[in-house]
Structure formats: C-alpha cells, structure tokens
C-alpha cells in the first residue's frame, strides 16, 4: 500500500511531536513526585511541631519558637498542596501522630529539640534530592525558598540545643 503525501506528512509530524509530549509528561510527573515527597516531609513537621508544642515539655520561649515554626510549616504545606492541586495531582495523606516513630516517647526539651533537628534535616534532604529532578521554574523557586526556611529552622534549633549553628558550608540535610 502506498501512502499519500498527506499521510506521510501526518506520520512525520506525529513522530516529531511525540518526543516533546513524552518529555512534557515526564517533566510534569517528576515535578509532581518532587512536590508530593516534599509535602509528605512537611506534613511530618506539621504534625510533630504541633504534638511537641502541646506536650508540656518545652520552656515557654522554646514553645513559642515551635509554634512559630508550626505556622511556617503550615504555610509550606499549603503552598505545596496548592501546587499539586493546580497540576490535578492528589496530595499525600498527612501522617497520624502514632505513625511518626519516636514522637510519642519524647519526655524532655532536649529530646524534643533533637527530634525536631532530625525531621527538619530529613525534609531538607528531600528538597535537596528533588532539586536535580525539577525543571519547572515555579516549583524550583517554591521548593528552594522552603528549603531556605527549613535551613533557618534547623539553625535556630541547633542553637537552642547548644550545637554548632551552621556546621557545614553546604546544607544538604545530611548528618
């Protein structure tokens, strides 16, 4: 069977268009995955800050710091959730308190600070790893500005825990 000139042209156009469609889908999927894993990390922070702030184990000034960080984590969750909504992607389900290992067993302020440093660092590590895969300019900027804020959280928490405030020149969330 001989193809008409129009069929040849259409086949050629489809072939040319397909890679860019695939690339666009790929980019969207990677953006959604990065936003989703970042939101999951933020949700852990939200639940943890709220639980610790209400646990009655913090000095008043430290409790105030935790509440302030909780508000900021809520703002991060909203921004990431809105971004996923706009992409038509579903948000991860926030964890319950008892699903976050170690949260319910915190008894002292020192333990709470160490715990908070841990989940903030894990969140930073998640953002850091996402950066290589993200190509969407808005998502990059949102995630980086959240990463910067969480870097500031962990800095203040380290100071409260009497640890070196900024121990490394490159903040990757690694120990």
């Amino acid at each position, binding site marked *: 069977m001989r193809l008409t000139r129009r069929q040849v042209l259409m086949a050629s156009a489809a072939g040319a268009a397909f890679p860019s469609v695939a690339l666009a889908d790929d980019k969207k999927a990677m953006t959604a995955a990065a936003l989703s894993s970042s939101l999951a990390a933020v949700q852990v922070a939200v639940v943890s800050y709220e639980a610790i702030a209400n646990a009655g184990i913090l000095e008043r000034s430290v409790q105030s710091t935790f509440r*302030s*960080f909780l*508000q*900021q*984590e809520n*703002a*991060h969750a909203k*921004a990431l959730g809105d971004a996923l909504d706009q992409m038509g992607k579903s948000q991860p389900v926030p964890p319950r308190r008892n699903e976050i290992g170690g949260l319910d067993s915190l008894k002292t302020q020192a333990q709470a600070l160490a715990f908070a440093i841990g989940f903030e660092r894990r969140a*930073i590590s998640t*953002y*850091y*790893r996402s*950066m*290589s*895969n*993200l190509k969407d*300019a808005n998502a*990059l*900027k*949102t995630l*980086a*500005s*959240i*990463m*910067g*804020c*969480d*870097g*500031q*959280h*962990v*800095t*203040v928490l380290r*100071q409260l825990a009497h640890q*070196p*405030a*900024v121990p*490394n*020149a*490159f*903040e*990757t969330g*690694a120990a």
Partner: protein
Amino acid sequence: MADPPDRARLARSRRTFIRLTGATFLGGSAAAIAACGGGKKQDTETTVSTTQAQGDAAVLNAALELEYTAVAAYEIGIGMLKGRALADAREFLAHEREHAAALTRAVTDLGTEPVKPRARSAYAAGFPRIKSATDFLDFALDVESTAVAAYLDSLAALNTDPLRAEMASIMTNEAEHLAVISGLLRRPQVPNAFVTGESPT
C-alpha cells in the same frame, strides 16, 4: 546606631552596590559535570550543549563574584567583632571561601575560565562606611540576603541537573547565616516562611 532614616538610606546604598556586583548573575544556563561542591556525587549525568554549558558557566561565574564580595566583606568586617559574633563570622568566612572554591571547580569543569578575585581594596571601595560591629552585621545581612536572592533566581536558569541541587545547598547555607546574624542583631531569626533574600533592613 544610626537613626531609622539614616539606616534606611545606608541599606539602600548597600543593596545597590551588591546588586551591581551581581548584576550579571542571570547570564544563561548549564553543563555536564557531576557536582560543584558539598553534596554527594549524583548518579545521573546530564548531557548539555556547549552553549548551555557556557550559559551555566556564566551563571556560576556571577555567583563566584558574589562569593568574592562576601569573602571581602567578612575579611574587612571581622576586625570589628568580638566574642560570639567574631566566632560566627570566622566560620561564615570559611564557608564563603568553600563556596568560592566549589564554584571555581565547577566553572573549570565546564571548560570555562573562572573569574578571579579582584584586590580586596576594589571591593572595599564599593562598600558603605562601616564604623561599628552593628554596621558590619547590617552589611553582612545585606550581602547574605543578596546572595540568597541571586541563587534563587539562578536555579531555573541552570540546565545541568546536579548543579541545581548544589546551588540550593549553598543558598540554604547563606539563609542559615542570615538566621544567625539576625539573632546577633536581636531581630527575628526566621521572619518569613519563604526565604526569598529580600533584605530585612
């Protein structure tokens, strides 16, 4: 300390100078190297064109010039500090030098000549008059804040995937410096949920 109108004027002139220094920050984009510095080596390597590599090198070179500015600022201001502030500034100076070294390596890996630091006096000539520890800490806030804004703006311009992660790790480190310096100045250490590098002064 200067009264509020003077402080506002000083802050404006500081920001103008730093922005001029980093004016070429957003030159273009990317390349094909593993990483520029602190983080772990990435598994995936991207292939980018020569033009993209040159673009990335331009972005990194502008970042490098900002790091040289920060190094000069800390070297000049450190003599005014004592105690905790001095210890922190020494540490941050070391960090800025590490950033500069990492960026130099990255630009070289992209096949481009890294910019060289100018004489310290050349940077100092553009700095505002710093007469006290508070003046210097205010200036350091502007230097760090400008760097954060520049790194944030550069991320989307980079084509080399691992470079974005490394630039974000430097940007976050500068944001951490901001938190410490703000604390030394008895200002809110984490004033915003989204760090954008907008100057708090």
